[in-house]
């Protein structure tokens, strides 16, 4: 058997051995996770396909429409059910990312697991990168695969979605489409990043604990802003300020949004790394 003797902070050889050992030891869990992720989208696709099929079949049965109207109405229904699938999938995708995020540091969920994880002869950065790679990168790709798999089912079942190339080109030609796409991607990834941070703080029941904390922060933040607005904000001057942001300056606002979202993502992962690096086997919330 090949031995790894390098003492670098990050060795690709050791990382690949770590990845192999992780896949070998937790193969069953990863397979279950993949089946669950793809299964959810497949189930959704089947459910929507069934309803779409019933609806379109019902339309044909009534035979009240002429040929052209019929095909237009069918196409409308296909688009409507296809859009429904995409909308629900997007919601599941975000929830799925948060679930994957909350599983990122599940290897620290018990004292026994923490011991076996910390004692593996690999560097901390390799172990952290492995978690980031499996749950953040591969997890996101897995969920995207699930969406497309479900979309494929819808497409076969009722011709759900006929992508209009023109619409896509129009979207990309839209002003600031780059900023908008990046903002959306960063906002979506933030749900993974926040829950990954939560997982590093509370490896047990991580999703619930992080969700509760996020709710408290959101409500507290909203309450604080309401009070601030009631006391300090001069609404008239705020509207004037926003009005002054003419079309040429909107990019500044969008850039600020992108910068905030990117910073939040990076901050979550940096804090998770700090927590990961300093994990002791006796895990307490604020252990230094």
């Amino acid at each position, binding site marked *: 058997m090949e*031995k790894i003797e390098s003492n670098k902070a990050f060795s690709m050889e050791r990382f690949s051995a770590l990845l192999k050992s992780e896949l070998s*030891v937790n193969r069953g869990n990863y397979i279950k996770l993949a089946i669950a992720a793809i299964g959810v989208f497949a189930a959704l696709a089947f459910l929507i396909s069934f309803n779409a099929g019933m609806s379109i079949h019902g339309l044909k049965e009534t035979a009240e429409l002429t040929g052209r109207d019929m095909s237009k109405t069918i196409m409308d229904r296909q688009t409507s059910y296809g859009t429904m699938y995409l909308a629900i999938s997007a919601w599941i995708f975000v929830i799925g990312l948060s679930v994957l995020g909350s599983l990122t540091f599940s290897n620290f969920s018990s004292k026994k697991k923490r011991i076996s994880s910390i004692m593996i002869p690999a560097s901390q950065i390799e172990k952290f990168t492995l978690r980031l790679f499996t749950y953040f990168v591969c997890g996101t790709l897995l969920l995207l695969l699930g969406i497309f798999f479900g979309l494929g089912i819808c497409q076969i079942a009722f011709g759900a979605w006929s992508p209009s190339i023109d619409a896509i080109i129009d979207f990309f030609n839209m002003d600031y489409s780059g900023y908008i796409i990046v903002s959306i991607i960063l906002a979506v990834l933030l749900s993974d990043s926040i829950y990954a941070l939560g997982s590093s703080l509370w490896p047990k029941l991580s999703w619930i604990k992080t969700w509760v904390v996020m709710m408290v922060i959101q409500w507290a933040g909203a309450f604080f802003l309401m009070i601030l607005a009631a006391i300090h904000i001069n609404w008239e001057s705020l509207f004037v300020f926003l009005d002054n942001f003419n079309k040429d300056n909107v990019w500044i606002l969008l850039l600020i949004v992108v910068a905030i979202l990117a910073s939040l993502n990076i901050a979550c992962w940096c804090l998770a790394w700090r927590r990961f690096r300093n994990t002791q086997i006796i895990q307490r919330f604020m252990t230094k």
Partner: protein
Amino acid sequence: MISLKNVSYRYTGSKRNSIADFSMELSSGKIVGLLGANGAGKSTLLYLISGLLRPTAGDVNVNGYNPWDRNPAFLSQIFLVPEEIDIPSISLESFVKAYSPFYPNFSEESLKEALFHFNLSPDIHLGSLSMGQKKKAFLAFALACHTPVLLMDEPTNGLDIPGKSEFRKAVVKTMNDERTIIISTHQVRDLDQLLDHVTIMDNNGIQLDESIAALQEKFTFGLAPVLPETGVIWSEPIMGGYAYMKMRTPDQQETEVNLEALFNYIYTRKPINAFQA
């Protein structure tokens, strides 16, 4: 070489140190028995040596490494067998394939030998084993890694009677001058004739740190229907007589060290005047 200098550790939320101002030095080539009452800090000490805990004060050094850095080169030189093990439900072969590449001294021959000692087949599935068998498989792997430092926390817990005897044989088989094995346990009888050094500790530090040879030179241990008239420093009534410990005189033959007697003597007679004599 393992060295701890003025090490203290306090668990978050605890009012007292689990280990306070603790110092110890261990050279290689020894099998050390780490003994202490419940809560004396034995496991904490093992965790500090293996880098699982960061000392609140003091320095820990293991073969030139600071364990808390968790350097991969350091981790490949140390193996910890915790009291409760986390062993995946995969075949032993897959387990070995997954983890052995991280240990440069791993020997498949040693693994087979240790498995043979423990009456386990190399083609077992870890998920189908009892807790005791899992522990045996894990111990076999730990011994086969031939790490210069091997730490074991209550290794005989959960082992059957032949398993305990086989454990001792397997440990002796893999021992060499470059290796340090520290065994923390309450089951002192399980370690009979295995140790060549004993460290007895409590929260205030080391109460005894002696080689078995030195202990044999200083004390004799025995069982008798009636207590000897002179020199007895500790005794306990047992069925049909007494277990006792006494200072050894030059004309007396050396006896095997009764670790339980020694431990009870240390814990009932502090400070240990016998060693200052």
